[in-house]
């Protein structure tokens, strides 16, 4: 009964075997770097999807928690020589705590007001990082962040980095998967659809939304921890509102509320701009055009919530998780 999904195995196999093999055979340092970025973006998109797709909270504060986790890790590893497990736990716990505190008043706001408030958070965060020079080194950026450390080992080389990132990202995505493909997910979707009616059914939408918000903050903070090491360098410019917009784009292009969509969306927003490099100055134009047209013609994204839920559940029913 407790077998993981075949779909999950497929995803794990692609990420842990197929992609590294392809990188090893044909890849370059550049390709490996892109692969890492796709994975980190997929975790961001999965976390944001939990919030926007499942809980229905349109949020633009990705960079707040992503940046928080990144700077936290940069500071910890540079000053205290922390190792990977400590950093991941610290980022997860501090992210959840920060998300819980900010989320408490925030998730009471309705739709558009919530969105505007999160935009404000993103701006506050960027300004803080830019100006709190003692802590963040300000506009100069945080240079020389050490590589991942596991116990006594320092992980260098693309393969080690890739595997660390892959395992952590898969873990994070598994958490989102469990939360969305369970009765807990049904409760969140009900709160999203009609808050008053959900309350009449005995659910507490505020608690559900707050939990979704804290989990999303925690996972994004973990993604930030990965990014800090993978990139060795952080700049306030990595954490501007536009970056939140890019994660939002990944979620919408992939399909709101759909977990496979998070991966597809991450692939699109990371790889398409790279593929468009030959366009030179027209690159941003081409990318914008693709996004614009894909939303016009595929408003439910490449893989919609409905079909993704139906797809995943065929396995859940077979395993007896859910009963018809």
């Amino acid at each position: 009964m407790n077998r993981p999904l075949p779909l999950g195995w497929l995803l794990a196999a692609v990420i842990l075997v197929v992609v590294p093999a392809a990188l090893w055979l044909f890849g370059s340092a550049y390709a490996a770097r892109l692969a890492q970025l796709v994975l980190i973006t997929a975790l961001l998109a999965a976390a944001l999807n939990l919030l926007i797709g499942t809980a229905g909270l349109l949020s633009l504060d990705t960079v707040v928690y992503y940046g928080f986790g990144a700077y936290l890790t940069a500071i910890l590893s540079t000053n205290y020589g922390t190792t990977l497990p400590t950093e991941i736990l610290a980022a997860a716990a501090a992210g959840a705590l920060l998300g819980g505190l900010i989320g408490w008043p925030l998730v009471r706001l309705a739709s558009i007001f919530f969105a505007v408030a999160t935009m404000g958070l993103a701006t506050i965060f960027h300004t803080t990082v830019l100006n709190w020079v003692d802590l963040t080194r300000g506009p100069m950026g945080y240079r020389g962040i050490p590589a991942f450390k596991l116990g006594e080992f320092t992980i260098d080389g693309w393969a080690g980095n890739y595997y660390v990132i892959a395992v952590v990202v898969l873990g994070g995505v598994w958490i989102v998967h469990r939360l969305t493909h369970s009765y807990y997910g049904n409760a969140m979707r009900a709160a999203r659809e009609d808050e008053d009616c959900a309350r009449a059914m005995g659910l507490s939408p505020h608690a559900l939304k707050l939990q979704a918000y804290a989990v999303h903050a925690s996972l994004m903070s973990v993604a930030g921890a990965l990014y800090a090491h993978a990139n060795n360098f952080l700049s306030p410019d990595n954490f501007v509102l536009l970056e939140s917009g890019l994660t939002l784009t990944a979620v919408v292009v992939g399909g709101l509320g759909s977990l496979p969509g998070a991966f597809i969306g991450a692939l699109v927003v990371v790889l398409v701009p790279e593929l468009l490099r030959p366009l030179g100055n027209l690159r941003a134009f081409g990318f914008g055009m693709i996004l614009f047209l894909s939303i016009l013609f595929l408003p439910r994204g490449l893989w919609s919530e409905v079909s993704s839920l139906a797809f995943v559940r065929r396995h859940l029913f077979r395993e007896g998780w859910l009963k018809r």
Partner: protein
Amino acid sequence: MSSLLEIDRLSRHFHGLRAVDEVSFGVNRGELVGLIGPNGAGKTTVFNCIAGTLAPTLGELRFDGARITGFAPERVAALGIARTFQNLRVFPDITVYDNVSVGAIGRAGVSFAGALLPFLERGRTRRIADSTSTALERFGLAAHAGTLAGNLSYGQKKLLEIARALALEPKLLLLDEPAAGLNGNETEALAVLVRDLRDAGLTILLVEHDMPMVMRVCDRIVVLDSGRLIADGAPAQVRADAAVRAAYLGDDS
């Protein structure tokens, strides 16, 4: 017979409008009580006060012997009061199965930890699955389990709302105009169903404009007019009441 629900001088005002004005009545265990009255009489407002959607301006509500005045809706639901809405409130973008499961989830509860580590909540999960399936089958919705609720016919949506409320396994069911918009056959089937629920021991408070149905299924009828209670008695008694005929039923019924 003991009262399951007691409404004691309940009032709800909207900016000076007395939508509900010192209304008192009780609903006994196992009883099917009709709440009728002309448009704007205050029936839905009474429901909203019981269910916690609106706070009463004055008065007291007791359920199962305990005071529930001004409780939040989720707390009232957890105590065992389920409702349907006059204007359909299904969750349109999730499936029929998921809609009904929400009621069962409200009863059994779900937790964050349980979602991550399912073995912690195997019993709960089974209970949710069982009451969901039972409710789906009882209302002939099992065949549509995978359909998005928004795609159901109007009549099916009305049934879905009742199924969802029943999945909460309530002690008291509040039905707000379940027959509105249904055709003759559907209304007939609904009347049978409501009566069956009552015969199975459920306590029901029914707001309905379809008089033949109300007269036929209810054990007792309470009549509101302009926020005030004007009659409370057996169907035959209420039908013969002069004040009720003048306010609502008209002289031809």
